[in-house]
């Protein structure tokens, strides 16, 4: 897959330059690392701050979700690489308005170590931090070891729900609890058809034959649970739903939001074909679908493939999910 870029080393800086230039009403660069994005207008004083961070190449994840009712700031790494602890500390500073800051991010080694270090740095500045890790990818560890799972598209639900809780004026414990509840309520699985190319590596993250797909693949090309012949849409959707529902059974009367997400190149047309099956499966169980999200919410640049995320809702989560939010990529209410 070909890319439009200048020097590979400048990819992220130039991307962010264009990003804030295109959406000045939503985003601004904070600090001088050039890699921390904060809301154009800071959240209310005394509001709990929410930060995230992670590698570039997943837009709208991570930094796209900085916005009202969502995140306050984001530290941005190179493509698929964790930002540094110093950048994360800067993001925490940008998000803080005295009520503490929730670190809400995906469970990846580099991010965990660096957010831990960042927390140690800002402790000296009397900023209290809490942590919620997203670990929603069912393909990445069995249920007994669910805390080892990778974080993928489920983070969008966690951003939304935690963001609404913070906007509502809850304290750090309250926002953290809501975020943890959202994180616990999400299950995701992905299927990849083609790789993407990290600009600096210059070649695809993996190789896969023209007639093959991989089930359960990670958003950085981490291996999945099987690789085999490309199947028909209905079969793919069926297996993905099986794997999610095995992990988190749903039954009559349950309320659930579902995301059918393109990993990048896969067009919305194909997502709609898949959504037919997702909807039929959930309704077949007697569950009600709340606010289905079909589109590009968490990507890997030009990777072809999809992910499904289920977010099982109770009344609190449903209210928070449907509360207003606004960023350049997503608006509710």
């Amino acid at each position, binding site marked *: 897959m070909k890319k439009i870029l200048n020097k590979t080393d400048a990819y992220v800086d130039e991307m962010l330059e264009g990003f804030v230039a295109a959406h000045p009403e939503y985003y601004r660069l904070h600090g001088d690392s050039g890699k921390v994005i904060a809301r154009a207008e800071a959240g209310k004083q005394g509001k709990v701050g929410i930060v995230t961070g992670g590698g570039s190449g997943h837009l709208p994840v991570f930094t796209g979700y900085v916005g009202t009712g969502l995140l306050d700031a984001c530290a941005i790494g190179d493509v698929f690489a964790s930002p540094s602890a110093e950048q994360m500390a800067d993001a925490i500073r940008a998000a803080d308005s005295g009520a503490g800051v929730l670190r809400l991010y995906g469970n990846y080694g580099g991010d965990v170590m*660096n957010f831990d270090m960042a927390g140690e740095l800002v402790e000296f500045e009397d900023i209290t931090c809490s942590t919620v890790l997203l670990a929603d990818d069912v393909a990445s560890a069995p249920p007994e070891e669910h805390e080892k799972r990778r974080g993928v598209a489920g983070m969008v639900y966690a951003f939304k729900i935690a963001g609404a809780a913070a906007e509502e004026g809850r304290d750090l414990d309250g926002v953290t609890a809501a975020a943890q509840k959202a994180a616990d309520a999400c299950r995701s699985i992905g299927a990849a058809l083609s790789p993407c190319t990290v600009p600096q590596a210059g070649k695809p993250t993996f190789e896969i034959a023209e007639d093959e797909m991989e089930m359960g693949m990670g958003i950085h090309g981490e291996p999945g649970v099987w690789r085999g012949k490309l199947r028909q849409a209905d079969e793919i959707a069926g297996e993905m739903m099986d794997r999610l529902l095995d992990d988190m059974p749903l039954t009559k009367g349950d309320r659930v939001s579902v995301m059918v997400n393109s990993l990048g190149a896969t067009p919305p047309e194909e997502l709609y074909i898949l959504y037919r099956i997702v909807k039929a499966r959930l309704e077949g169980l007697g569950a009600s679908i709340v606010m289905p999200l079909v589109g590009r919410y968490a990507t890997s640049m030009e990777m072809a493939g999809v992910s499904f995320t289920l977010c099982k809702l109770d009344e609190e989560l449903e209210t928070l999910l449907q509360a207003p939010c606004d960023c350049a990529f997503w608006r509710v209410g």
Partner: protein
Amino acid sequence: MTLTRDTLLAAIDRIAQAMERDFEMLNAADGALGDGDLGVTMTRGMRAITEMKDDLPADIGMALFQCAQAFTKSSGSSYGTLLATGLMSAAKALRGQENIASSDLAGLIAGARDKMQDRGKAELGGKTVLDSLDFLAKALPGADDKAAAAAQAVDNALEEFRDRPATVGRARIFAEKSVGLDDPGMLAMQSVVKAAVQS
């Protein structure tokens, strides 16, 4: 034999070259079960150090501290963060000195290993870079030829762990598949150590 700023500068050059040479190998090793970026991490880190190396002070502790800073700024990958954590540990111990006695090496490496273990919350014996450092720390004290012993230690560590399952990082998700495969972080440490001790 003692190590000084000059020894450090020369080692930096050799390690930087080795990383350019091993770029594809490390990406591929990491890509087998992980995200395939270890070559990127190492070349970026060493380029960042190379760029500022002429400004390194004679104080070897300060010099290592600045190297660690440069490396972390270049990326936040697991490996980069762990390496920088290890360098910081050595940097703290060496602050104010202009050279390192070769007899201190084992202790510095053991100290780095422990701090990296705190940071990454992984066990020893988990088939990671920690085990390479552990082998180094244990091989050096009794050895006359420290360079040869170090090179042998990183080889031995790989040998010893090759057929064990990964327990840490992205690769532990595929513990069975990892049996028979070298841990990419241990491979990187092998390249780093061999480049460092060569002369």
